[in-house]
């Protein structure tokens, strides 16, 4: 069976492009969404192993998307990694409440992105 894809959600097309290009170069299958709603609409069908979620998005922010995923009866097993512009403690606490599994501080460093994606996918497989 083909590996489940990674869903990257960000309203900034440049950020999406960088993350997608990098992850694809590492051999992952990547699908993108440019809003929280689009991401949620794609989740059911896509069943990604991991969602990389930007916090600051108009309409529906990353926390809300994360909460929706983690409270969903069948989607709650999906790993959620937040892309946050700040590394503040308050943000992490919010992430905890939203059920996130990990976070990456923006601007993204590609080596960190690679490591975090790898270990979250591994943790996801272990937990399954």
């Amino acid at each position, binding site marked *: 069976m083909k590996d489940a894809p990674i869903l990257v959600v960000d309203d900034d097309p440049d950020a999406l492009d960088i993350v997608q290009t990098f992850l694809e170069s590492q051999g992952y299958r990547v699908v993108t969404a440019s809003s929280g709603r689009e991401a949620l609409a794609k989740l059911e069908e896509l069943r990604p192993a991991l969602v990389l979620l930007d916090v600051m998005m108009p309409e529906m922010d990353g926390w809300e998307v994360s909460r929706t995923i983690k*409270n969903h009866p069948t989607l709650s097993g999906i790993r959620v990694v*937040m892309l946050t512009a700040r590394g503040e*403690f308050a943000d*992490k*606490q919010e*992430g*905890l409440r939203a059920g*996130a*599994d*990990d*976070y990456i501080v923006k601007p993204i460093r590609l080596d960190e992105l690679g490591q*975090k994606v790898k*270990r*979250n996918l591994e*943790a*996801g497989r*272990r*937990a399954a």
Partner: protein
Amino acid sequence: MRIVVWAQDETLRRAIDDFAAEHDAEVIDATGQTAKKLLDELRTAPNLLVIESGAIPIAELRAEASASGTALVVACHDTPQCEAAALANADEWILLPVQPDELRIRLRTAQDRAEGVTTRRRAEETVQLLRYEELLYDRLTGFPTLPVMIQRARELLDARGELTILYIHFVWFSKIEEIYGWQRLDDVLEASADAVREFYARERMNGDGAMLLAHIADDDFILFTHVPPDPEQADRRLRALTTRLEGFLRARIEEQHGEEIAALCGIYVGTSTVFRNPKIRTERLIYRSIREAADAARGAEAWELTHKVADLKATLREGAVYMEYHPIIDTQTEAIYGYEALARGIRRSLRSPEVLFEVAEEANLIWELSRLLRQRAVQGIKSQLRKDQFLFLNVDPHDFDDPVFRDLQPEDLGIEDPGRLVFEITERTAIRDYPRFQTYLTAFRERGFRFAVDDAGSGYAGLGSIANLAPDYIKLDISLISNIDTNFLKQNLVETMVQFAEGQGVRVVAEGVERREEFETVRDLGVHLTQGFLFHRPGRRAIPA
């Protein structure tokens, strides 16, 4: 049938189209038209005119609608608009967004009224009726099924001459969310709703075809049923039904969420029976009866609280509490570092410490209870503690308002080394006056006592209280610890806490460690102490070395 519509709201337009299709009616779209145009339309005597509130003053249309026998229905965005519509003598009103079921009934009632099948109500009477609806609406942010239910209840009442209402009132001891987290609370609420539905389905299967169920607010429900005409028999059957209902719900919650959570839930059923009375409007009878049943359910709650308060007073008089001690483990050596004392009531109704404290708060007996528990906690384990072990006692910020506690000396508790006693500050309520609170803490420190911040990372106990209380221990809440082995965000947070603690000479305790993987993770992150079912459950005495 012909329906004239002035509406921009999509739900309303769609619901009217559906209604028209069902009734083979013609819809005339007048959206955007002026009052004058609408008056022209009215002269063609359509059966219904539905307008969105705010479009055209209702008063301008009222006379013409009456003259042509057209039922006037106003769709409103909020309840004040409903009230205005009622006062302007609209035949019926509906709240947006529209539920098709509700609209159907509202349109039919409006027509009945316009055609004089039902006597036209006086405006004030209508407003009063609206207030009954609002009473129920109020508590429940939109309750579209209520009018639907009332309509069916009316049919039942008309057919049988009487109707019995069971009002099911759930009470959750408020701390459930803080202790177990909101997801857990949601689960429990859902389970209780499911249990009510299941009970309803079962009883209906048993032949009581006349039952009806409605959901009010988050956690209250209404059941309609009918009982035999013989009053004595009716009374007995109703009591049996109520007992069965309460028992069923309690068993379900216990089954799915355990005894501990079930103990935090109160289930109260109030009943009320309506008899048909041609002199009084049926809706009013029913609404009034729902309120009676709700009052009865709340009365049952108050009655039970009175009993619990009496139980608590007896408990305090007799000292009918016992202590359990939960070991705290040194993460490096895995030896027992100390114990946290946990209070339990001997009476079943007061077994859970949360209930114990909530009742004490209600009865203003918190200080008395806390004093008893402190004495008991120390007495119960003093002689068993090794010289190097610590005793952790829970205190509430409010305890510092008690002069007896404020002036507490080590000898009052009969202990030699106050440094072995750690007060865990549990923020059940937010601390408002930090400067004053800090002077109390300083005085305690000068007497040699130590402090811990309990449940850090949950509820009120955030970074602020850690900074303000400058504790000797930080106890990390279970929500931060569960599944920490696979959650990197939690790992990072705990790591930050440990780094901070090391710099301040503070020790970190991980609460709720249940799995070996969780233990190893927190140990590797540098957490000093752990507490949880992985090593020990709370017990009545210290564990022998």
